[in-house]
C-alpha cells in the first residue's frame, strides 16, 4: 500500500479511496458491524440507542424552533404561539421538542436504572458511568433553560426559584445570583443567555456522548449476567443482531412518543406555562417539570436553604461515587437477592420523591419526603457498601454461553450466516 494510506478492505472504489485516507468506513464496520456484543442482552439494552436518537430529534427540532423563536421578554411567548399557529407544521415541531424532553428523561432514567441493576458502573466501566452522570447533569441544565424560553408563568418563576438556590452559597451567594441573572431579577438578559446556552449545551452533550460511546467500545458492553464475555461463543456481531433488536425498540419508543405528541401533547406540561410570564403575580404553587420533581422534593426535605441545596446536588453527585460505594464483586442484581430488594426500595423512594415534589410543602408530604430522602441516601452510603461485604451472592454461571445454551455450549455450531454479517458468528447452537 505504502504512502501511509490505511489498508482498507472496502470494495466500492469511491468509498475505498475515502477510507484509505480517512478510515471512517472501517471504523463504522468495526464499531457497529463486527463489534463483539454479549449475546444475552434484554430489551433494557435498547435505551442507550434510544437516548442517542432522542438527542438527535431534540437537536433537529430545536434548530428549526430557533429559526422562528424570539428571545425577548416582550416577544418570546407570542413567538412561540406564532410557531404553533403560523409556521408550517410549527405545532408539530414544537410539540415534538416539548414532549421530546420528557421522552429523553424517561429513556435516560430507564438507562440509568439498567446500569444500576446490572452493575454496569463497576470496574472496568467506572469512567463510562461517570461520563453518563456528566451527560445527565448537562441534560438537566439544558432542560431547565429550555423550559424558561417560552416565557410563561412557570418558565419565569421556575427560573427565579432555581437561580435563587445559588444565593444559599455562603458569602458570595447574592453576587453569584446577580451574575447568573445579568441583572437584579430574572429578566431579558437572563432569557438571552439561557437561549444561548440552551442552544450550546446539546452540542456539549453530543461531545460527551461521543466520549461515553468511545469508552464503551474500549470495555465492551455489560450484560444481564454481569460477567465478561470469555470467547466468541459469548458474543454476537453488533450487526445484524443488535441493529435489528434496537430497531424494534426504536419503533416502540416512537409509538409512545407519537401518542404523546398527537393525542395528549400538553399532558406532561403545566397549564400555568400558557399564561405569559408576570413578575408581579406569583403562581399558587411553583412546580418544576415532572422529571425534576424527585430532586425538588429532596431540596424541600431540608428546612435549611443551604442544607437543601447541598443535599439536592449531593443526590446526583453521589452517583459519581457509585462504582466505589458498591463493594460487591458481583455486578448483576440477578445474583444478589438481598441487595436487589433494597434497590427496588430505592426505586420506590425515587417515585415517592417524585410524588412529593408535586405536592405543596405541607404535612404529611414534607415528612414522607424526608423519609424517602433518608432512604435515598441510606441506600448509597450505608446499605450498598455494607451489603457488598455481608451478602453471599448466588453462584455465577461459568460463561454467558453456558448460561444461555446450557451444557451444549462447547459444541461448535452450524447454521447459516446472515447476509451482511461481516464476521462469521461462531456461536450458533
Amino acid at each position, binding site marked *: 500500500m505504502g504512502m501511509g494510506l490505511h489498508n482498507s478492505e472496502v470494495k466500492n472504489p469511491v468509498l475505498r479511496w475515502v477510507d484509505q485516507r480517512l478510515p471512517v468506513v472501517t471504523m463504522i464496520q468495526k464499531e457497529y458491524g463486527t463489534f463483539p456484543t454479549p449475546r444475552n442482552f434484554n430489551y433494557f439494552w435498547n435505551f442507550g440507542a434510544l437516548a442517542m436518537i432522542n438527542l438527535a430529534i431534540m437537536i433537529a427540532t430545536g434548530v428549526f424552533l430557533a429559526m422562528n423563536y424570539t428571545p425577548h421578554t416582550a416577544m418570546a411567548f407570542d413567538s412561540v404561539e406564532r410557531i404553533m399557529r403560523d409556521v408550517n407544521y410549527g405545532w408539530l415541531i414544537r410539540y415534538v421538542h416539548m414532549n421530546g424532553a420528557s421522552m429523553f428523561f424517561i429513556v435516560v432514567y430507564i438507562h440509568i436504572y439498567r446500569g444500576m441493576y446490572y452493575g454496569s458502573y463497576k470496574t472496568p466501566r467506572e469512567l463510562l458511568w461517570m461520563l453518563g452522570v456528566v451527560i445527565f447533569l448537562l441534560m438537566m441544565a439544558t432542560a431547565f433553560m429550555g423550559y424558561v424560553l417560552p416565557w410563561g408563568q412557570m418558565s419565569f418563576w421556575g427560573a427565579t426559584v432555581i437561580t435563587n438556590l445559588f444565593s444559599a452559597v455562603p458569602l458570595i451567594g447574592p453576587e453569584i445570583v446577580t451574575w447568573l441573572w445579568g441583572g437584579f431579577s430574572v429578566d431579558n438578559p437572563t432569557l438571552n443567555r439561557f437561549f444561548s446556552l440552551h442552544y450550546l449545551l446539546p452540542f456539549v452533550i453530543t461531545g460527551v456522548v461521543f466520549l461515553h460511546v468511545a469508552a464503551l467500545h474500549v470495555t465492551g458492553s455489560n450484560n444481564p449476567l454481569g460477567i465478561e464475555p470469555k470467547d466468541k461463543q459469548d458474543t454476537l456481531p453488533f450487526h445484524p443482531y443488535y441493529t435489528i433488536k434496537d*430497531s424494534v425498540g426504536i419503533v416502540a419508543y416512537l409509538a409512545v412518543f407519537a401518542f404523546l405528541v398527537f393525542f395528549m401533547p400538553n399532558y406532561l406540561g403545566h397549564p400555568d406555562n400558557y399564561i405569559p410570564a408576570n413578575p408581579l403575580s406569583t403562581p399558587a404553587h411553583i412546580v418544576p417539570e415532572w422529571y425534576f420533581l424527585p430532586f425538588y422534593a429532596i431540596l424541600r426535605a431540608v428546612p435549611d436553604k443551604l442544607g437543601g441545596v447541598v443535599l439536592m446536588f449531593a443526590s446526583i453527585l453521589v452517583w459519581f461515587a457509585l462504582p466505589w460505594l458498591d463493594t460487591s464483586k458481583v455486578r448483576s442484581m440477578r445474583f444478589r437477592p438481598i441487595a436487589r430488594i433494597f434497590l427496588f426500595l430505592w426505586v420506590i423512594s425515587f417515585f415517592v420523591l417524585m410524588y412529593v415534589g*408535586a*405536592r405543596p410543602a405541607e404535612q404529611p408530604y414534607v415528612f414522607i419526603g424526608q423519609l424517602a430522602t433518608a432512604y435515598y441516601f441510606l441506600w448509597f452510603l450505608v446499605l450498598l457498601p455494607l451489603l457488598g461485604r455481608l451478602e453471599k451472592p448466588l453462584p455465577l454461571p461459568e460463561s454467558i454461553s453456558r448460561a444461555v445454551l446450557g451444557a451444549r455450549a462447547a459444541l461448535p455450531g452450524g*447454521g447459516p450466516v446472515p447476509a451482511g454479517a461481516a464476521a462469521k458468528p461462531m456461536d450458533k447452537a
Partner: protein
Amino acid sequence: MRSKGLTTMRILKALAVAATVTLGGLTSPALAAGEAPPPPDTRFSFDGFFGTFDRGSLQRGFQVYKEVCSACHAMRQLSYRNLLDIGLTEEQVRALAAQFTVTDGPNDEGNMFERPARLSDRFRRPFANEQAARAANNGAYPPDLSVMVKARPNGADYLYALLTGYKDPPAGFQMQDGMNYNEWFPGHQIAMPNVLNDGQVDFADGTQATVSQMARDVTTFLAWAAEPELETRRQMGVKILIFLAILGGLVYATKRKVWADVKH
C-alpha cells in the same frame, strides 16, 4: 423465551408505575391550587382522541365572544383570517373584519390613520393597554383568551363550569366589594360579573340561546382558538400510529428471523 417474557413484563410494570406516579403527581398542583373543586366533566364535540370541533358550535361561539366577551377580553394571538377555519366564507370574514376599525400607519405624511380591519389584522383589542383595561374594570384585568383553554387545568370543563357557575353566595360568606360569587372559581370571588343571560344573543341558525348553550359554544370556540391544529394533529396521529404499527410488525418479524437460529 421465558426470561425474555419476564423482562418485558418487568419493563412494562416499571413504565406503568412511572405513569401512575407521574399522573398522580401532575394532577395534584391543580387540586392543591384549587380552593375550588375540580370542574365536572362536560361532554364536548372535541372530547376524546378522535373528537372534532362542531362547526356550528364554533360559529355560534365566535358570535358569543364577539357580542359579549370581546367587550373586555382580547384574543391577540388570533387574526380575522383564522375565522376561515371555523367554516365562514372569505366574503363573510372580510365583511366581518371590516366592521372593526384599526389604527395603521404612519402614512407618507408621517401620520397614523384609521381604516377598516382586513383579513390579515389581529383581532382588535378592547383596551389599548393593561392600565386602560384595569381602569375600566374596577381594577381587574380581563385576561387574554387566546390560549385560555390550555392555561387552566381541564380548561374546557373549567370554562364551561365557570360561565354557568354564578350563584348567590352561601349564607355567611364574606364578599369583597364589586366581586361576584362563582362556584368554580378558585376562592369563589371573581371580578367578572355574570354576563350570560338567557336570550343574550340571537343565533342565526335558530339555536336557543340558553346560558348553558352559549357557555358550551363559546367554550368550543375558545378550545379551537387555543388549539387550532387539534383536528389536523389527531388525523396525522392516527396515520402515524398505523404506520408505526405496520413498521413495528415488519421490524419485529425481521428481528425474529435474524435471531431465529441463535439461542439467547
